[in-house]
């Protein structure tokens, strides 16, 4: 069976670790990972709970394909009620941690309560214990991993931890595993910090915990899947060579690259911070920013960027700890740290990205918040006195300084740690926060790409690109080409993408496979791994069920139709340049149709019939 059927429940208040059997009916209804943990969370917490209350829970969860030879089968998710949004939060990460949890024999770890003192959870196969982490509190993610490995004399242990951002409850703090892979968005790391849980360290050596239900069919299906990934232009060529950064110039030329807090849709410095630029030799030291590409566990795509900075760059000149190779910028991070605030210095972006990994915070929300703060500064609302230094658009020094301050929770970094919604509200201009449900947009303009605008507005975890990637049809022509400005057919396509994505996120594999894989490629792998009949129809129903369960949680938490909205800038201020010039979001045209297709009332509430059909 592809599930280990074991759940580890950790009560941080009592300091106890107990084992319980996985609810197999829920596994059949929600598959695993995102879906399954959401079902547990929704069943166990009050949707109105304060995210930082000990009554909120934090779940680390794997999927049935995690820790298997299915390509990209190494994913895990962290599910909780998020402090940035107040909505369901579910952040997905790669690296090696998720598979190790499975090797140790666990599908899921549920943390409840809050520890009276800093602790970390140590899992050694079936043994789990809470260990004092007083000596780790105040340490970065990088230091924490090194100290744990050294103290336990086990270099093969895998660690997921929070840095100072999570400890300081930066509202978009991440949980970082394997030094540079992150459950990045919605502030799951801050919830971990609120529970005084510094890290989870796992070593898994069991051979009897799980196995595919039908090995022969499993290898046939996974090998076929790998061939499809290798033959595809995006997953076989584009992503290994340029990473997600393959998009920077493409999106800019399309006029869909939000620039300077979404005031513009094209960035004159796009090439300087692109995937292509990472391959170019620096004039300063003759070396390239990119050292190599790297893979997460089981991944045959290998889109990860491993970068090395110019040691002479002003940001790291006297800091040798940043002179080695580490996780480089992906597209979303390069956009947020660069275009969103007008900075075109690739080395500075790389340094800020290192800091995001080192101290565990989300570069998307951070960079977008820098952009919002810069706009307030240029308007004269934020002053040099308040910030401590000048903060104009395009200031590399200011962006870098803010990254350092935010990680440490010092000075203006404290305000930065609130995210743009609270920052802009504090200074009287909530409309300048480029967010949905208080979470910042990623790197695609919701005016320029109508489907992405709808995706942002309806996303259960606030604005994000990973729950219905309409860039695929609107830019890449996958699975069909849709014109960026068209609205026709977009709600239906988005619904299909959202439901399929929920399946992928619940299976243990990476969403990036879907550049090449359709459900027809994924279904045989799940079918061979799991007991039971997992037809394509059933999987899509599982995806739809997950989407609606998340929606019900948000509605119960107090969200309404008015939260399925975009900032006025996207609805009223037309794009000024490029192929999408003149565009504003036509959300009002698409949203009613989307609700209807979802089987929701005009107020965005699932009808009794929909609830019955999905069993939510």
């Amino acid at each position, binding site marked *: 069976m592809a599930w280990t059927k074991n759940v580890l429940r950790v009560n941080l208040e009592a300091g106890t670790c107990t084992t319980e059997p996985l609810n197999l009916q829920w596994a059949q209804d929600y598959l695993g990972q995102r879906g399954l943990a959401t079902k547990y969370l929704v069943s166990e917490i009050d949707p109105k709970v304060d995210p930082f209350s000990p009554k909120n829970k934090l779940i680390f969860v794997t999927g049935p394909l995690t820790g298997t030879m299915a390509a990209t089968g190494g994913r895990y998710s962290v599910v909780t009620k998020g402090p940035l949004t107040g909505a369901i939060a579910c952040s997905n990460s790669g690296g090696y941690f998720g598979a190790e949890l499975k090797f140790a024999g666990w599908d899921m770890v549920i943390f409840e309560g809050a520890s009276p003192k800093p602790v970390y959870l140590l899992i050694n196969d079936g043994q789990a214990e809470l260990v004092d982490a007083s000596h780790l509190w105040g340490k970065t993610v990088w230091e924490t991993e090194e100290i744990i490995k050294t103290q336990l004399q086990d270099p093969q242990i895998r660690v997921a931890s929070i840095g100072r951002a999570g400890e300081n409850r930066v509202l978009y703090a991440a949980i970082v595993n394997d030094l540079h892979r992150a459950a990045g968005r919605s502030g799951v790391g801050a919830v971990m910090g609120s529970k005084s849980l510094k890290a989870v360290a796992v070593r898994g050596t069991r*051979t009897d*915990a799980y*196995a595919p239900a039908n090995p022969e069919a499993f290898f046939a299906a996974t090998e076929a899947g*790998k061939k499809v990934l290798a033959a595809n232009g995006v997953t076989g060529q584009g992503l290994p060579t340029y990473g997600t950064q393959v998009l920077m110039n493409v999106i800019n030329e399309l006029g869909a690259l939000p620039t300077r807090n979404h005031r513009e849709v094209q960035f004159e410095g796009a090439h300087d911070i692109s995937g292509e630029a990472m391959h170019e030799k620096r004039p300063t030291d003759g070396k390239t920013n990119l050292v190599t*590409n790297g893979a997460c*566990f089981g991944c*045959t795509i*290998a889109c990860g960027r491993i970068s090395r900075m110019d040691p002479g760059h002003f940001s790291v000149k006297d800091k040798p700890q940043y002179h*080695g190779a580490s996780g480089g910028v992906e597209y979303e991070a390069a956009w947020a740290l660069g275009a969103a605030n007008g900075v075109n210095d690739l080395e500075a972006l790389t340094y800020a990205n290192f800091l995001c990994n080192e101290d565990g915070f989300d570069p998307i929300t951070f960079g977008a918040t820098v952009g919002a703060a810069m706009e307030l500064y240029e308007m004269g609302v934020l002053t040099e006195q308040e910030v401590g230094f000048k903060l104009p658009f395009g200031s590399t020094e200011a962006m870098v300084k803010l990254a350092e301050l935010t990680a440490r929770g010092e000075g203006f970094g404290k305000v930065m740690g609130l995210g743009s919604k609270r920052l802009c509200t504090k200074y009287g201009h909530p409309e300048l926060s480029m967010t949905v449900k208080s979470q910042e947009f990623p790197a695609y303009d919701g005016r320029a790409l109508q489907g992405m605008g709808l995706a942002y507005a309806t996303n259960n975890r606030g604005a994000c690109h990973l729950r219905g990637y309409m860039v695929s049809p609107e830019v890449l022509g996958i699975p069909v080409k849709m014109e960026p400005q068209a609205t026709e057919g977009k709600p239906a396509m988005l619904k299909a993408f959202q439901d399929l994505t929920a399946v992928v996120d619940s299976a243990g594999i990476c969403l990036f496979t879907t550049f090449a894989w359709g459900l027809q490629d994924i279904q045989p792998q799940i079918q061979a791994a799991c007991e039971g009949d997992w037809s394509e129809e059933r999987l899509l129903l599982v995806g739809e069920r997950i989407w609606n369960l998340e929606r019900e949680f948000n509605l119960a938490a107090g969200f309404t139709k008015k939260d399925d909205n975009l900032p006025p800038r996207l609805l009223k201020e037309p794009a000024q340049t490029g192929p999408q010039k003149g565009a504003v979001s036509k959300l009002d045209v698409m949203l009613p149709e989307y609700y209807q297709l979802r089987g929701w009332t005009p107020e965005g509430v699932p009808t009794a019939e929909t609830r019955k059909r999905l069993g939510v």
Partner: protein
Amino acid sequence: MQKSLHLDPNKCTGCLQCEMACAWENHRSFTIAKSRIKVFTFHHEGRFVPYTCTQCDEAWCMTACPVDAIRLDPVTGAKIVLEPTCVGCKVCTIACPFGTINYVASTGKVQKCDLCGGEPACAKACPTGAITYVDADWTGLGKMRQWAGKTDTNPATV
């Protein structure tokens, strides 16, 4: 023709498909802790290096074994651990200069790469060609070709 595993770190991405394939082949489990091939990450250098037994011609593990539990497979050239004979004394793990023969506590025996009887699962699973199974006499052929390509034999372009 004798073949040998050829490891090319420049092509390795650290995906660990090889480790899972090895563990599955020998333990019917994907748990990489049981793999006989390991990929090492040198994070600050941005390098991933696969490493396993190179099947020494003069195999010190085989010489050191007091019970003759390590034998030569004449077809593949692999040095193979005979599990029923192995007494788990671990002397071979001391004798091996490279660390590629290791004790398995759960079985009480040692394990090392046996080339899967001539069809190494790691090479089959590697998606980038970092692990290949090639003519043992010509493991340098790829590098030779690479350097050969850099020689300029066309004077017109000088």
